[in-house]
């Protein structure tokens, strides 16, 4: 999605959250339509289990509903806010279940089937997004990429990531920053 499209989508989603904040269930349905697939996919990535991911998704949307009126656009974009809620919910479930995570890499999942998207436009958009991210990830050194994946999808704190990777905390923080900045630079680069 282009930065302009992302910005416009974010504004629309902020309005939907405001509507949810005053009890508009139609807005809930719209937000669900926009967010459920990526959030469920995130749940699948973090929890590795459809029923766990489904439970997490339900809990997340109930939280989004209950906190929509408090959403603050100054602090985060709407989808990032929803992702944070989903990730925290997944992390709670991980900790509750005391599950050992098998943190796979993006590459391992590259050949997995995608669920059938609803429209051709979505298919194209998803493939474009995936290719862009894969291209961006190619430019990131493997340790930075690994640290970023652990930070995003494992539920580990940065201290735990440092322990897992047997690196000083400061190094891990630096890797996370550089990894995210590298993605940001690559993904916001104009298409040639």
């Amino acid at each position: 999605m282009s930065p302009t499209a992302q910005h416009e989508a974010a504004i629309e989603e902020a309005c939907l959250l405001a509507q949810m904040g005053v009890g508009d269930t139609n807005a809930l349905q719209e937000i669900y339509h926009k967010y459920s697939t990526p959030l469920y996919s995130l749940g699948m990535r973090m929890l590795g289990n459809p029923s766990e991911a489904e439970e997490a998704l339900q809990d997340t949307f109930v939280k989004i509903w209950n906190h929509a009126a408090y959403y603050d656009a100054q602090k985060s974009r709407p989808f990032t806010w929803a992702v944070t809620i989903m990730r925290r919910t997944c992390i709670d479930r991980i900790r509750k279940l005391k599950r050992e995570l098998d943190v796979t890499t993006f590459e391992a999942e590259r050949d997995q089937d995608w669920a059938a998207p609803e429209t051709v436009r979505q298919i194209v958009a998803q493939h474009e997004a995936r290719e862009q991210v894969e291209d961006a990830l190619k430019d990131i050194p493997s340790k930075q990429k690994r640290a970023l994946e652990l930070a995003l999808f494992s539920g580990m704190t940065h201290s735990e990531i440092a322990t897992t990777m047997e690196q000083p905390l400061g190094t891990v923080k630096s890797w996370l920053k550089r990894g995210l900045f590298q993605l940001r630079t690559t993904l916001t680069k104009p298409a040639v």
Partner: protein
Amino acid sequence: MNTNTEELASLYVLDKLSADERRTFEERLESDTELTLLVRELESALEDQVRALPQHMAPGHVLSQIQNKIEAQAPIATPSPVITIPWAKFAGWGMVAALMFGVGLTLLFTSRNPITGESSNQSVVLIVRMDPQSSVVEVLPTVMPVDELENFVHLAQMVERFWEHPEQLPGSVNRSPLANTLGSGYAVFDPQSKHGFIAIQKLPKRQEGKNYFLWLRDSNANVLYRAGIIPMQEKDQGLYFFELEENSPISSNSVAFFITEEDTAEAELSQPHGELVLGSDHI
């Protein structure tokens, strides 16, 4: 921007800061535009990561289960104010769009009967406290954006800050304005753009067939404006936006706000007839 700040921004986006660190960082975000832009870009990168995961559609029954859970839970206490406005910071037209949908902050009717007079005051915002029998005004020097939407968003941010931190209200207005058991409130009004917000609390329940009307009196020119009808509905508090018509000059900083209770049938009322509920028609 130094490396430490960039690192903090990354950890913030990755949700790896402690609660205290997060709070401190969010305070910086409120005043640091460059930092906010960086965070938005990093968030965009994170979102792309999530959207690039192998996509799985949630089972079809999940939405109805979510709706059932929401219906089953005890009613959630409505946050204060009735409608929060933080997303006004996000984009002016997003705010306006939401107003049009009638979902956000309530947009009151515009006033009637424009008058001629001196040019508007420049670069001040009027903070007017309303008590059951009085109205007090404070003039707050500030630089307001000329652009209408930017002006609107700037004012909204100011109002939000006052709502969240009433102790920051200036001077005589700062007297726990929303703690009065008899009803209280304040208006934040930019005489230049004629945009304003009114925050009210603990108004008595409206009688059936009655409406609360918000009035503004320019004391210097002795001109009265109807700023709108306040749709209090079931709640006794709220935060509302209003604007006067473009050609309604405000001649001075002596502006009083007051609320009267009027018959519903008087939708086009141009003068108050009903009982004074809050504020005063003179400063």
